[in-house]
């Protein structure tokens, strides 16, 4: 497998002086799903903004063999689709169709190709028939799926998803995971930012853990990482919780799918 993303020694500081990223280095192989987990405010979204060239941190970023700079920026954005956390930021056109066709139109495709690409993208996220709906009348789950369709219509090689399951109900989450599986089977490289360990377990090939010092502390196979309690606990991804049964209070780590002895 070929390397598709390489980041080394990336540093970013917000205009007000707050540190956004500190010495971030990692690599992603083509076709793999890398899940980036970390607590709130650990710089995961900032990393995405840097990868897309919206924020310019100091360091080296290479995507699809191209170094991220002003000259390559357009080509990189052509091949990388990023979905924002809040679908209201992603869907800015009056109708869903306008939004989904926005990317391909800007790529310079002709009308027929644009319509075909948009229909395909809408079918993939199960939103056929929503073309002329206005975005603000969609439910949150539908908005999230429409947001993904807006970048799928550009047929990117790499997808950056910021909190894809945040704020969704269980059925929407499973629908979303299905979509992610389809994308994975199409050979797309997925980079997903989340703190949902359930999603991580479902979809990840490799996991990158961000610490609260705004830098990655561990990277590896998802099974290894998810087994490593100390690591997860230290980085605020699981927590101790106390509960009571049979009038006895006891304390243990909280983890999904983990049944403990009493």
């Amino acid at each position, binding site marked *: 497998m070929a390397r598709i993303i390489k980041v080394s020694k990336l540093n970013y500081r917000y205009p007000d002086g707050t540190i956004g990223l500190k010495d971030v280095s990692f690599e992603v192989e083509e076709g793999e799903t890398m899940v980036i987990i970390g607590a709130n405010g650990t710089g995961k979204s900032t990393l995405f*903004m840097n990868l*897309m060239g*919206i924020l310019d941190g100091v360091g080296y970023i290479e995507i699809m063999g191209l170094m991220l700079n002003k000259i390559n920026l*357009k080509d990189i*954005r*052509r091949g990388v*689709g*990023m979905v*924002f956390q*809040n679908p*209201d*930021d*992603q*869907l*800015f*056109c*009056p*109708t869903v*169709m*306008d939004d989904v*066709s*926005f*990317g391909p*139109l*800007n*790529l310079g495709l002709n*009308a027929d190709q*644009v*319509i075909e690409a*948009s229909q395909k993208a809408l079918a993939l996220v199960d939103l056929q028939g929503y073309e*002329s709906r*206005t*975005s*603000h*009348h969609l439910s949150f789950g539908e908005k999230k799926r429409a947001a993904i369709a*807006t*970048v799928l219509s*550009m047929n990117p090689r790499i997808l950056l998803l910021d909190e894809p399951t945040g704020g969704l109900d269980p059925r929407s989450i499973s629908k979303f995971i299905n979509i992610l599986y389809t994308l994975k089977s199409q050979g797309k490289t997925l980079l997903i930012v989340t703190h949902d360990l359930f999603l991580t377990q479902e979809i990840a090939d490799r996991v990158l853990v961000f610490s609260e010092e705004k830098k990655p502390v561990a990277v590896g196979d998802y099974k290894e990482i998810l087994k490593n309690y100390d690591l997860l606990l230290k980085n605020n991804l699981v927590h101790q919780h106390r509960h009571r049964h049979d009038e006895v209070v006891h304390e243990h780590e909280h983890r999904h799918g983990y049944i403990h002895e009493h």
Partner: protein
Amino acid sequence: MRDGYFGLRLCRTMKLTNSLLEKLDPRTKIISFLSVILCMILTPITRIRDFGLYFLLILAIGFFSRITPKQILKKVCILVPFVLFIAMFVPFIKEGNVCWSLKISNWKFDITYEGAWTFLNIIVKSTLSIFLLVIATSTTTFPDFLKGLDMLRVPRLLVVLMSFMYRYIFVLIDEARKLMRARSLRYFGSRYKEQFRVMGYMIGVLFIRTFERAERIYSAMIIRGFSGEALSVKRFRFSSMDILFLVGIIVSLVCIVSGLVNKIEHIRVSGAHLWQGL
């Protein structure tokens, strides 16, 4: 959304009734409605009979739209008070021949003939225009209207601006309402001064949020290759119905306007004053 927002009620995508007016190309509607409004505005208010004819024309258009009069009146009643409020003071301000004086203790208000006519001018023309506007908005979805404008070569920037307004006004209203709710949940009565301070904070927060959202949206746009041009795949085509409608409107407008020309001629010949010529 609560139903109280008149903006929402006006902008909401209508339930499609499949009427003639809905099937028309948005460009046809924009051109014909705009020409009706233009003719109406350019008609001197003294030709009351012409306005009767305009009203009939609008009624006919309303008939084609298949919207019930109740629906139309409901929306008109939302907008008219605004105009009334603005026009209310005109009779008192305008200088000219005094027709009626009002005296309240030391204050004296004069209503002039010119003022009264201007008042009537504003009210009649705006009410009729509002009627037309309501019919137009209830038979055209806003996105279609924007596309029509774009195809009529209205400056792109303006169209894009309007489309953003349409997209985000609801999000903004929502955000404002959330702020109001958060305030009212923690609000247990305070002095007026305090309330204004809180209001100021809220406006400030709303502004910052809007500003930051705008930045995020712009990033979302450039990521997807935005280069300053708003493109769209949806295209409209003129049908025979469009041409028929357009011709109908223009013929009736010409009839009304030419009648007006004759009357002005008559007034000029008989040498009567404009007011007396009615």
